[in-house]
């Protein structure tokens, strides 16, 4: 039986470093090529030596597909393509292709310029790598080669995030990347059609969580900002440059518009401005509201949000500032935080998770006195809020996607093992399909039962139609006679005559003959006649002929009578039929073995 093998090199029972190998129908595909945020050594990148010990990967991979621009999904791409060596096609959507190099460059700068690492990929490598990228459109079927085709679906999550449907012949795999089943302020919800893949590889970050409605969170967020502004306080929102930041900007921008607020909103510049440019461009990838109103006004052309300047932080009066980075561990956000922390009118809103050890984590846990470098302490008087804005599907969302796609098998990646275990159980119980959750380097194998397409000759089909019976119903199997020819990777069903002709063989006739002993006092011709009348009464709807040469023909079956020499009453019937008439022949022989009814004249 054919198999599909899935091996995660990263993200197997883990979050980060997404890299999954799929071999399907003889093709090898790499899904995502990410890095791990938590490590600074070799474990940062997937272990490509799993694929091959030496040399380039080009020979072993048919294509690489990147689902979206987050570094844990594309961070290792230049390393893989330029340093390890891969020259095949890399597929990603247009927005991903546009934004990905910005992030990679930023990542490179931090590691090389700030941390001083050597043996890291260079800017030129990023450029070279991006040259190998083939852009994808949503719902566009792309032929990688003659047999392998891929198709992207909308995934929400971040701008340009996509799920991919990979198909070889009748076998298929869907890889979701990261996705979000509830729409937010700037992106829509993930959607896939009922493609019934053999395996659905889904992320499971929130496998054990069912989240509350987004609206409540948004409302809370807006209310807090609004109240602080009205009090005359300043609001600091530490964010990471891409993704959530845009969502929050839209949220505040529309709120400012709606409520006619005048307080300034600033965004600390840098990477964001470049990225924001792309958000403006890729309107088709955003949600309904933005798509519908962009003719009047592009929502990403912010009216109220202006670029931040260092000096603004000391301005009097209320303001809202988005500043990077998101965990208050360094940079502009920390500087502003230090300035504002002393005033209880001010507020800091943490929109995401904070790693232990960062200031963000400390203040979230209620620490009011912070030790800064140089023994200085900082009194935190401002209000600290936590607001979770995350764009992964929750348990319900994952189930909803399964219901949409109706896969035959399920495979979970990008999540913690314990949580996966729970979801696995649920999936198996609800949908009664197999669910796999391989660890890194472990291979999950799924046997498939692909349907084999066979060409059928028109003549044969027409002949079959002519035989009558009900019209063909595609839902019911139907038997027919024919010859299967396997030739050069193609299968053909033809009539036997044609097969003989094509193969240059002679036809062999196969005839069965059979003797039946019969007690009959009449003469031979009479017996024959009696048989003729008997058969005529039994076999209605068949052509039965009494031929002058002393035989009875039922269709093509020949019946002859001869009496044995010693006993004239004991007649011997000779039956002969060809292989094609096997059914009728054996029926006749059993019928005649029973003897003739006495009432015949």
């Amino acid at each position, binding site marked *: 039986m054919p198999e599909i093998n899935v091996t995660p090199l990263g993200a197997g029972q883990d979050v980060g470093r997404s890299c999954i190998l799929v071999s399907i129908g003889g093709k090898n595909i790499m899904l995502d090529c990410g890095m791990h945020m938590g490590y600074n050594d070799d474990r940062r990148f997937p272990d490509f030596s799993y694929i091959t010990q030496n040399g380039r990967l080009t020979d072993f991979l048919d294509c690489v597909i990147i689902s979206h621009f987050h570094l844990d999904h594309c961070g290792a791409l230049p390393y893989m393509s330029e340093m390890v060596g891969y020259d095949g096609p890399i597929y990603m959507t247009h927005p991903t292709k546009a934004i990905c190099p910005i992030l990679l460059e930023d990542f490179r700068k931090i590691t090389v310029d700030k941390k001083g690492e050597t043996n890291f990929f260079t800017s030129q490598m990023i450029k070279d790598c991006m040259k190998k990228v083939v852009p994808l459109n949503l719902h566009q079927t792309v032929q990688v080669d003659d047999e392998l085709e891929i198709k992207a679906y909308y995934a929400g999550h971040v701008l340009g995030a996509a799920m991919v449907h990979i198909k070889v012949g009748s076998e298929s795999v869907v890889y979701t990347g990261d996705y979000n089943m*509830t*729409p937010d*302020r700037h992106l*829509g*919800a993930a*959607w*896939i*059609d*009922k493609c019934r893949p053999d395996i659905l590889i889904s992320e499971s970050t929130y496998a*054990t*969580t*069912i*989240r*509350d*409605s*987004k*609206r*409540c*969170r*948004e*409302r*809370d967020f*807006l*209310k*807090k900002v*609004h109240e602080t502004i009205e009090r005359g306080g300043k609001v600091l929102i530490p964010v990471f440059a891409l993704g959530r930041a845009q969502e929050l900007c839209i949220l505040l921008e*529309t709120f400012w*518009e*709606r*409520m*006619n607020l005048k307080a300034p909103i600033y965004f600390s510049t840098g990477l964001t401005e470049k990225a924001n440019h792309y958000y403006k461009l890729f309107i088709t990838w955003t*949600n*309904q*509201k933005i798509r519908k109103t962009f003719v009047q006004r592009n929502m990403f052309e912010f009216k109220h949000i202006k670029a931040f300047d260092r000096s603004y932080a000391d301005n009097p009066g209320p303001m809202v500032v988005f500043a990077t980075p998101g965990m208050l561990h360094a940079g502009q956000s920390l500087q502003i935080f230090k300035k504002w922390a002393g005033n209880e009118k001010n507020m800091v809103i*943490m929109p995401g998770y904070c790693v232990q050890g960062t200031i963000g984590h400390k203040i*979230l*846990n*209620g620490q009011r006195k912070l030790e800064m470098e140089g023994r200085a302490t900082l009194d935190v008087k401002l*209000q*600290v*809020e*936590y*607001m979770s804005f995350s764009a992964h599907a929750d*348990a*319900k969302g994952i*189930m*909803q996607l399964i*219901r*949409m796609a109706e896969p035959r098998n399920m495979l979970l990646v990008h999540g913690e093992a314990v*949580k996966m275990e*729970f*979801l696995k*159980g*649920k999936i198996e119980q*609800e949908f009664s399909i197999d669910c796999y959750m391989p660890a890194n380097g472990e291979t999950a194998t799924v046997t498939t039962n692909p349907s084999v397409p066979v060409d059928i000759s028109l003549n044969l089909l027409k002949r079959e139609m002519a035989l009558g019976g009900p*019209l063909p*119903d*595609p*839902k019911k199997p139907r038997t027919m006679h024919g010859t299967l020819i396997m030739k050069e990777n193609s299968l053909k069903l033809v009539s036997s005559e044609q097969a003989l002709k094509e193969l240059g063989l002679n036809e062999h006739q196969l005839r069965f003959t059979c003797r039946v002993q019969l007690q009959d006092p009449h003469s031979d011709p009479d017996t024959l006649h009696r048989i003729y009348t008997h058969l005529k009464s039994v076999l209605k709807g068949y052509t039965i002929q009494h031929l002058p040469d002393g035989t009875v023909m039922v269709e093509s079956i020949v019946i002859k009578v001869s009496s044995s020499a010693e006993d004239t009453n004991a007649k011997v019937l000779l039956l002969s039929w060809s292989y094609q008439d096997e059914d009728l022949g054996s029926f006749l022989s059993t019928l005649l073995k029973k003897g003739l009814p006495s009432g015949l004249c």
Partner: protein
Amino acid sequence: MAAHLKKRVYEEFSKVVQVTHEEAPAKKLRLSKPSKSAALHVDLCKASSSTDALQYLLTFSRKPVEAESVEGVVRILLEHYYKETDSSVRLKIASLLGLLSKTPGFSPDCIVDDAINTLSSEKSHQVLAQLLDSLLVIGSQLPESPAVRLRLIEVAYKNLSDSSFGVRTKCLQLLGCLGLLEAPLGKDTMRDVQSIISDYFGDQDPRVRTAALKAMLQLHERGMKIHQIIYDQACRLLSDDYEQVRSAAVQMVWVLSQLYPESIVPIPSSNEEIRLVDDAFGKISHMVSDGSWMVRVQAAKTLGSMLQVSPHFLEQTLDKKLMSDLRRKRTAHERAKELFASGEFSSGRKWADDAPKEKLDTNTVNLIASGACGAFVHGLEDEMFEVRNAAVEALCQLARSSPSFAEKCLDFLVDMFNDEIEEVRLQSIHVLRQISTHITLREDQLDTVLAVLEDSSRDIREALHELLCFTNVSTKECIQLALLELLKNLNKYPTDRSSVWKCLKFLGSRHPTLVLPLVPELLSTHPYFDTPEPDMDDPTLRFWFWSLNAATSCPTMPALFSDHTFRHYAYLRDSLSHLVPPLRLPGRKQVYGLDSVDCGSGSVESAQLFLQQSLNRVSTIQNLEAAGAPELLDLTIRDLQRLGELQTELAGAADFCATFLRCQLLLMKALQEKLWNISVPLILKQNITVTAAAQQVLDESYKLEFLYSGLENRQVATIHHVRLQAKALQLILAARTRHGSCEKFLQDVESFQRLFLTELPHLQDSFVEKLLELLPRLSSCKPVEQVKILQTTLRQSGLLQLRLPEQIHRATATIIEPTGESDNPLRFTSGLVVALDIDATLEHVQDPQNSVKVQVLYPDGQSHVIHPKPADFRKPGPNRHRLITQVYLSHTAWTGEACFHLAASCWPTAPPAPPGWDGPDAMDGLPACRGTVEGTIPFSKHVKVFIMPKPARR
């Protein structure tokens, strides 16, 4: 050129054939107008190729065909049909069959047989489908003929097994539209229509499945009772691969759930059984998270109309058990409620205050919600606003029928106030208003609601004010909160004044007991000290409406008021009487005897009685010359006017009667004048007054006809009668000064007779009756005599009695903005336009989009009529419209400020520009009635707006 020649050739040719056809044998004679069919026949015969033929048919199909020649045309078409080899031409012919049989006045039963016969020989599936479609048209043209129907149904049965989806679809359509509702008697061969259609629920083609479902729905619509067996099949189709099938299946399931709500269905894989409507509800709820948004909209809409569902299931739709790391988590709603209960209001101040609490048993967590779980939670969070809107709508319908559900869905609706699309926000506010009778808002909910008051959209704010008018709140803090927010709103958007005041009024009168403890603080009174008297224009004054309204039902409240409060009360009561209720103040004389404090609800009947009596009294005046008649009329008119002011319910009726009587009075006075006996040169002065009277009566008659709604034919006849009298009067006057012809008048009389033939018996002894008697004589004699006759009849005719219809309302318009009180002129650059915001309320105006205009009267006497856009009209309530628009004014330079007049006016649509509206020729010397444009009736007061040009820049 060539085409032209060709055309001419055919024209000539067709003429020739026409002659031959007329000479054709007798059997052709029933083609009374053979020209058409003949021409077609020739065209088709001439057609060298199938494309040509198709071209002829296409041009032919654009022209209408007379009912008499249809049959002939059909025969020719069919004749050609059998000859034609190209299927596209046959297809066109088939479609023409359907088109032709729709010709009004043609009964297609004669072509049924021919049409059916064509089916048997047809090989092309497309043509076959088109033929069936045409048959469907024919069948639906003949609803009365069961024989034809039976035949058509048989045809449909025969073709159902066709291999093309198009043919099967059409057959099913045919069955759905024509299938017999009762099983045909004595015909066992024909199976039940339903079971045949339901066989195709499993068809391989999704289009056929959809058609089958649609056909079934069609049967249901036509009144056939769908069998319950279908339910299971329909449910299976809910998980079809194709959205149109699922969409139709949702409808089907809904229909069945309405038909058999109480029957019991088993739950698969368990022994339990539930009601069918609950089961269907659960299944449709499931569809709210479907992959296709069309289906989601459909499902969400459908849920709203399933009112029989049991409350247990209903409440599940809002259920969404949250968990985090396998531990149960409370929703933000629950947390808010708890915080509220524990006295602390703020929420989410601490990180992880939403930290999950108890550990969940993994077995009990149901991730795919079976049944109705969380349907609305999904629907309200959907990515398409259409779905969200539908879900809000459905919530509204369900909540209106179930108070407990209303309570539950409150949180969700309040959340929707924060939607990104204004339409959805507005919708959810409206919905909350509709269910507000069932609910009491908690403080935190109110807080969220009130936050919307700062919205920059006027519609949203006004909807919210409307909502607050009907809201119940629970505590005095709430009411204080609402008050403060409303004041904030007022500061930010001063244009909301009237709406906020109204809102305060209702809030006060709704919660008197909650207001009571707040009164001293708000009115800033102090037990010991006299506080300074507030300024009358102070915004705090707005509390007044509120406390005063509360005081009407809370007798202890006035005791808290200080002296100046009472003085202000008198002022406010007078200036803003619609917002300040009458109060029974202790130790104070009723300032106005008419302040109807004791005018309870029962007085409507008494007022009605009074109205009737007044009318009866007037009706005793038989003769116009009778002494005291004018006085009586005068008195009655005054009474009625006052009655209208006192009783708003009867204002329309009283006003109507008063206007009518005034017309009568004017006529009476005009005829009573002794002037009729004086010689011509002496009466010039009186003449003018009489002419003015006649004109006024005419004007009033138009107002009577077009400004009042609820008039019956009888009243209209009476009004026309008055108008006729006025016209007669004008005619007589005109005849006295110069010679006029009364032809036009006679035409008017005739048209009156034509229009009100049925009403004539009621108009006994009236002017018209007499006139009609004299009509033959009148039309034949000389003009001088005509006038004489008219004069005598007019003077002799009696007073017409007025009978009041049930409900009668006067259309009014109040211009709220601009107020007309402002002395500050609006400045603009001369030569350019200046936009003026207009805000007006229209009451009892029918079809305002077409009839209401804004009329601008320029200082130089010019008058413009401006048509507002249809979108400028909003409908806040029954019989009420709101016009918010901008009017562009412009004028060339002048130096000082100038005053523009604005008025809403009505453009009577019924008769396009009433004839003789600006009076007959005789009116020349009279000043034109100020402020009217020809053909319009102003129905609001004029508002003065001062505008002043800025000095033009050089």
